Structures are given as structure tokens and as C-alpha cells.
């Protein structure tokens, strides 16, 4: 096991791009390699050592033996864990855009909030966000109709707009609340929101499942055939509780399922 710890020395208002510092790339790096490394900031590269002290402990045969720990104020560190396929990253603060985007394996834990695009186009692995996240979590790249297709995103706080946009697989769990249009355009996959949802979950969805355990304020007309289901089994998962199940979004000939907690959403009955 090799533990690489980044301790912040200095912050920058212009974002630092961490896409080259993933286990796949740096599992053989020693401290001197980090001393030499220049990190992209804006249109230039600056020595990483000005911004971070890097401690390397242990050794690694393969990327999967690597654990990266980031300490300090990471609110301007973008692309943490982008495209990683294995290993582990722990960020001990709020992180900037694209955390865990396009990752195909491994594990990222954010002990704070994550900015938008967390877990964009994930194909595998586990992304845990202990705080909140913002827009387009688990979404697709703009224009692509294939979004996150595998892996798990676990959000302990709340999520912003358009959670799991164009979801084509994988699982997203939100412990807190969620803003408008969760699961828009999704074709497959699973979203579970434990808190309240503002408006219009599942807009234009074609398939997949959305479970809302909190209160929903407004539902789209495209969701039809409500029926009461108790303890449904969804994608092999046994869910306990009483739900109103809708099929939608028929405005797009969709055959997705939306489950609303029946007790909290009596007004829809």
C-alpha cells in the first residue's frame, strides 16, 4: 500500500487541474517526481510544490495499491479522480468541479461538498460525497445521450438540479433533498432520493427507476397509471415502504418508473 498525502500550502483563485494526478498515472511516483511536477493552472503550468507538500509512504506494485489523501482547502481543485480506474482518493474538504468524472473504478470519498459535474459519465467505482453537491451530478457530457453508465454515487447531503441527467446505468443515492429535474432523459439506472424534491423528477425519462422517499411538490403530466405498491422490489433491491408508482414520461413514450412515498405525498392520490 502506498499512501500519497497532499497537504496544501497555498490556494489559488484560478483552478488547479488534478486530472493527471490519479492512481493510474502516479502509482510509481516518488517525492522527487512530485517536486518536479508542474500542475496546469489557467493557461500555464506551475510547480506543484508551491501549492502542496506531498508525502509518500509505502510502495505500490499497481495503481490499485495507491491511496491519495488531499488535505487543505480544495475548493479550487478541479478534476479530482477524473478517468481513474482503480485505487482510492480521499479529499478532506469541499472540492471543485468534475470530481470523479469519467471514472471507471476505484473509490473517491469527499469529506465535504462537491461542485457540479461530480461523477459525470462514470462507468464504475464508488463516489461518496459526505456533503452536498450541485448540478449535473452523474450526468452526461453536454450533447451526449449516454450519461453515467455504471458505478455508485452516494450523496449524504443534498443534490442540485438535473441529477443523473441521461443516466444509462449505475446507482445514485441522495440522502438529502434534490432540486428540479432529477433523472431527466434517463434511460436506465436507479436513483433514490431520501429527502424532498422540488419539481418534475424524471422529465422525458424513457426507462429506469426513481424512488423518492420525501415529499414532492410538482409532478409532470407525463406520469400516468398511479398504483399503490408496498415493499416493491426494484432492480433486485428490496425496498420497504408504501409507494405510489407511476409510469412515464409518456410525453416521450417512456417506460420508466417513478416511486413516490405514499404517506408523504397523499395530495397526489
Amino acid at each position, binding site marked *: 500500500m502506498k499512501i500519497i498525502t497532499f497537504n496544501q500550502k497555498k490556494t489559488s483563485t484560478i483552478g488547479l487541474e488534478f486530472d493527471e494526478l490519479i492512481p493510474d498515472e502516479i502509482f510509481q511516483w516518488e517525492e522527487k517526481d512530485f517536486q518536479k511536477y508542474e500542475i496546469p493552472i489557467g493557461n500555464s503550468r506551475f510547480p506543484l510544490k508551491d501549492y502542496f507538500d506531498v508525502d509518500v509512504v509505502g510502495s505500490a506494485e499497481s495503481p490499485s495499491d495507491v491511496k491519495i489523501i488531499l488535505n487543505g482547502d480544495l*475548493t*479550487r481543485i478541479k478534476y479530482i479522480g477524473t478517468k481513474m480506474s482503480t485505487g482510492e482518493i480521499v479529499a478532506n474538504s*469541499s*472540492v*471543485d468541479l468534475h470530481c470523479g468524472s469519467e471514472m471507471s473504478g476505484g473509490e473517491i470519498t469527499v469529506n465535504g*461538498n462537491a*461542485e*457540479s*459535474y461530480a461523477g459525470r459519465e462514470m462507468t464504475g467505482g464508488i463516489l461518496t460525497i459526505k*456533503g*452536498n*453537491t*450541485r*448540478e*449535473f451530478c452523474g450526468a452526461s457530457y453536454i450533447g451526449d445521450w449516454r450519461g453515467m453508465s455504471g458505478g455508485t454515487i452516494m450523496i449524504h*447531503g*443534498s*443534490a*442540485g*438540479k438535473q441529477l443523473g441527467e441521461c443516466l444509462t446505468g449505475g446507482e445514485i443515492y441522495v440522502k*438529502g*433533498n434534490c*432540486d428540479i429535474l432529477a433523472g431527466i432523459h434517463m434511460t436506465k439506472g436507479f436513483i433514490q432520493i431520501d*429527502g424532498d424534491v422540488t419539481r418534475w423528477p424524471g422529465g422525458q425519462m424513457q426507462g429506469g427507476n426513481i424512488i423518492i422517499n420525501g415529499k414532492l411538490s410538482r409532478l409532470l403530466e407525463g406520469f400516468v397509471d398511479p398504483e399503490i405498491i408496498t415493499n416493491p422490489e426494484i432492480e433486485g433491491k428490496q425496498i420497504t415502504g408504501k409507494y405510489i408508482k407511476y409510469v412515464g414520461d409518456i410525453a416521450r413514450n417512456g417506460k420508466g418508473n417513478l416511486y413516490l412515498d405514499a404517506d408523504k405525498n397523499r395530495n397526489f392520490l
Partner: protein
Amino acid sequence: MTYVDKPTVPNVVKFDEPTATKRNKLEVMLNTGSDIYQGACKKRGSTLKDEYRHASGTAYLDPKDMAKLGVKNWDTALVKTNWGEVVVYTAHSRDAPHEGQIFICKGPWANVIVSPETYCCCDPTYKGVPASIEKTDEDPLLMADLMAEVYKKYDKHETVTANKLGKKPDNNVCHYRS
């Protein structure tokens, strides 16, 4: 040619409107956008002039809301949102009825109070911003004064009028407000 002192607006505010209970402050929804007076004045380049203040620095209200606030055409009001406060004129909206909504043409005045939140879609929230409007005695500032007063790029003195920005988010990772 196309110069006007101020935009033409209807003048049919009925203060004896039966539903108009007088209020000091109204909670409204703020919309911004363009209209033909603002567009013509801006693109002609007459932005330093009084015409622009009237074309752009005017809140168009539903006559019922005007009655509730007790303002007439070309009275002044203070509009507040989470992002700032600005003094503007009030006028009768040509697009009424839209009770509970106010419309301010885009321009330096509206900018002070609209939300810069883009929600990752590049476009700030120019429409549908929750705001409050109250009557005031102050006059709206001319463009140059307003810019100096609000942004303080070259003069860092404290604000002396009611026009000011809201508190800067302390961290630029704006956390979702649940």
C-alpha cells in the same frame, strides 16, 4: 429622431382599487429583459444620459401593485434581492396585468439585483428572482454614478446611497441551499 425623454406608459392607476390594501413593502417576482425603449437608447449609445435612466432604470409594475404601494408613474422605489439593492423609477407596465411581478429592463440597474447563479448552464438567472419593492424618496442614479457607487473600482469609499451589492458568498463553491 428616436430620442425620448422617457418611455410612454399608460396612466390608469386607480388608488381606490378595492383590492389595493396599502402596503409599505411588497414581495414580488423580478423579471428582467429588454424593451424597445431600452434597446434603442442603449444601442444608440446614449447611456450616460437621463433617457437611459428612465428607459432602463424603471420598474414596470402592475397597476394594482402600484396602488398597493401608493406609487405613481415616475415615482421612485427601492428594490432589494439577495444580491443587492437599487433605486429605480416606477411606472405602469404596458404588459399588465401581471400582479406580483415586476419588470426592469436589462441594464446597470437591473444587474445590481439579479442573480449570477447559472446552475451550470452558463446563463445567469435574469428572470424569476424573488425581490421586495418599497417606496423611497431617493432618486435613481445616472449610469456613471451608479457604476462607480456599486462596483467601486476606482473609488473605494463607503456607499452613500441606497444602491449596493449584497454580501459576497464567502466561498465560491456555492453550496446547495436546501
